């Protein structure tokens, strides 16, 4: 049996965790016990610090039935709905054959392990289902567990109370290891324990596993017996930044390999933080190296030749690292790259501009490309310099909406033109003259107009019933146009009027 399971804490008292966490959790549980509904808890923290253990020990201490759902289960929309949704709103039948009623304080703790790993693809809709369930204020206690709480949507985070777990200290780990060794009847050197604890880097589960691997089949363990494979400690991008900017250790390259960031993303991180650390000549050199790294990234993309990533990574990490002449002293708060956020806003702007061009192109009878090169700036100039009335007419002619106007000429002027347009009811109508060709058909439609107006909702059916199949489409449009025309009481803009 794995020691990790064997020595899993049975009650709250056995759990290794800061007293502040224990206090929060116990108050939470006590409130539940008294029948006061509480927000679900979100245990957040690195692996092996006792998140799941605490949740299980809590249930054990209070005699709650446990329903656990972890990453090995499929957690799509329907599973979350059936298990979490139903489990949280119904009473419980225990494995022991008892009926547990919440009215008697016999609760069921639903533990959702590794919620940040509810995959977007396979577990489609899992997270939104969870949000829906939590919104309904479940009458059973629930604990969510995540390594990276910030991978969860803010919506979900708002529905829970977050409890942050930190990495355990070396002494805390050693203490637990000591106890286990004693219980197993193993004599172990203090140094050996420290070696194991150091290697585990605050991950108690890893430490216990290592201890078992070392001690299995021995009665006495000495420091030199501890030859555990170096555990790849979880590292994060901020640590890598620190290593690049504050040290000269070229091992930073292999460390970046452990990061969950591709070189294409990492370069933005480095680029965003270089100016915070370097200045003058150093900054210039670092940027030069970065641009070279970027060239490699471009080549990777173009040639689909991923071996070049290696050079890009080397340049952006070790290259930037070595180009400094001195280390800037003091703590630097590294920032997240803003590139992706900017991308989103740029996209919005591009979209807006494209819509405007579409209108310009359509109403001025030209291609969008031509509208972009010849008309766009001209219209913008006219709108911002002409008197409001003419500008509003132009805006109405191109059927521009408020957002587009504001984008073109700025918030204030855009607002002014838009208001003027509304006040004078300027709006675009299609040129009517070409409708004359359809005069005969229009008449036919007019006969039905009365009917149409009476049964406005049934408009389509009436038409379909009354008009031949092939004419249907055209006539429907015409009816609509005609009706629109009737409704308009303000000044209509047409091509002739505008150019006269």
């Amino acid at each position, binding site marked *: 049996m794995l020691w990790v399971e064997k020595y899993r804490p049975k009650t709250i008292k056995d759990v290794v965790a800061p007293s502040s966490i224990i206090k929060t959790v116990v108050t939470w549980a006590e409130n539940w016990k008294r029948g006061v509904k509480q927000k679900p808890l979100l245990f957040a923290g690195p692996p092996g610090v006792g998140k799941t253990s605490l949740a299980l020990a809590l249930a054990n201490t209070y005699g709650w039935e446990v329903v656990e759902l972890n990453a090995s289960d499929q957690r799509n929309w329907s599973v979350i709905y059936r298990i979490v949704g139903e489990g949280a*709103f119904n009473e419980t039948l225990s494995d022991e054959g008892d009926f547990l009623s919440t009215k008697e304080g016999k609760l069921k703790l639903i533990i959702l392990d590794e919620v940040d790993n509810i995959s977007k693809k396979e577990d489609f809709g899992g997270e939104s289902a969870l949000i829906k369930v939590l919104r309904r204020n479940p009458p059973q206690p629930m604990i969510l567990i995540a390594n990276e709480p910030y991978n969860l949507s803010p919506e979900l985070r708002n529905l829970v109370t977050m409890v942050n777990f930190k990495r355990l200290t070396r002494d805390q780990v050693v203490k637990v290891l000591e106890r286990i060794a004693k219980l197993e009847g193993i004599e172990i050197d203090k140094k050996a324990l420290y070696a194991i604890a150091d290697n585990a880097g605050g991950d108690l589960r890893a430490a216990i596993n290592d201890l078992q691997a070392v001690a299995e089949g021995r009665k006495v363990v000495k420091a030199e017996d501890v030859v555990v494979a170096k555990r790849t400690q979880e590292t994060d991008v901020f640590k890598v930044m620190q290593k690049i900017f504050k040290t000269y250790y070229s091992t930073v390259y292999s460390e970046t390999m452990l990061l969950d960031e591709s070189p294409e993303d990492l370069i933005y991180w480095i680029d965003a933080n270089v100016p915070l650390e370097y200045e003058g000549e150093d900054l210039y050199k670092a940027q030069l190296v970065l641009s070279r790294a970027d060239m490699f990234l471009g080549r990777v993309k173009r040639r689909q030749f991923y071996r070049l990533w290696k050079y890009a990574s080397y340049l952006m990490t070790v290259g930037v690292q070595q180009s400094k002449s001195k280390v800037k002293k003091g703590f630097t708060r590294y920032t997240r790259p803003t590139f992706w956020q900017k991308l989103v806003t740029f996209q919005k702007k591009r979209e807006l501009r494209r819509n405007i061009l579409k209108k310009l192109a359509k109403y001025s009878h030209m291609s969008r490309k031509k509208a972009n090169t010849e008309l766009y700036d001209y219209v913008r100039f006219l709108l911002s310099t002409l008197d409001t009335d003419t500008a509003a007419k132009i805006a109405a002619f191109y059927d521009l909406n408020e957002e587009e106007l504001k984008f073109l000429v700025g918030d204030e002027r855009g607002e002014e033109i838009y208001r003027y347009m509304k006040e004078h009811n300027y709006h675009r109508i299609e040129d009517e003259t070409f409708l004359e060709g359809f005069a005969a058909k229009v008449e036919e439609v007019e006969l039905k107009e009365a009917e149409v107006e009476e049964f406005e909702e049934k408009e389509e059916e009436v038409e379909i019933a009354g008009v031949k199949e092939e004419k249907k489409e055209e006539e429907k449009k015409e009816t609509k146009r005609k009706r629109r025309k009737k409704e308009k009481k303000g000044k209509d803009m047409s091509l002739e009027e505008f150019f006269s």
Partner: protein
Amino acid sequence: MITAIMGGDVIRAVTRAMVALVSEARFHFAEDGIHSRAVDPANVAMVIVDIPKEHMEAYSVDEEKTVGVDINRVYDIAKTIKKKEIVEITLEDESRMKIRFGSVEYALSLIDPSAIRKEPKVPNLELPAKVVLDAGEFKKAIQAADKISDHVVFRSDETGFYIEAEGDVDKIVFHMSEAELIEFNRAEARSMFSVEYLKEFVKIAEAGDLLTIHLGNNYPVRLVFEVADGKAKVEYILAPRIEAE
């Protein structure tokens, strides 16, 4: 070696009944018949299945066995079996089960029973009200309730048995008086349940099947279906919903 011969309707009903709650279950091949029970992952409902020896065409056990079965897989196969078809199940060891019907022989590899969730004990419940009715009627009531709400209230008093569902705007009441019920003890009881479970349960029910409901006050309900012309007994125990104060 264990051999069991039964009608296709029995294996269909039994697997359907289990699949409503779990994907894997232990089956006991005992002297007196085949038994299985399981509790759903959310610890809300339990299913107990019995196929007594007398209701099988033939049944021989030289040594009692417990096997782990992937219910989803068996159910997929069972769906293709016709009701009147005769199915032969043979079990030589704990690793493989043979299901033979028509011209098909399906060798199903079994799961280690110890890897399956521990079987629950059957709760000892004191439920005052007892109602016996046509399962088909019950099925209709649940399916109607499902259209408007996610929970229903089962209620019984001297005037009869009620199933009530209240949606945001609509309300459905299903009422059977003593005369319409097959058996009724006029006891008073009331509990609320999730439709989500009930609608899965009623899928095995057909008009003409007998359903016995044991009901309590804010207490679990026992629904005992006699399916496949009474050849198999499927019992569900469902915990009540927590009613908002």
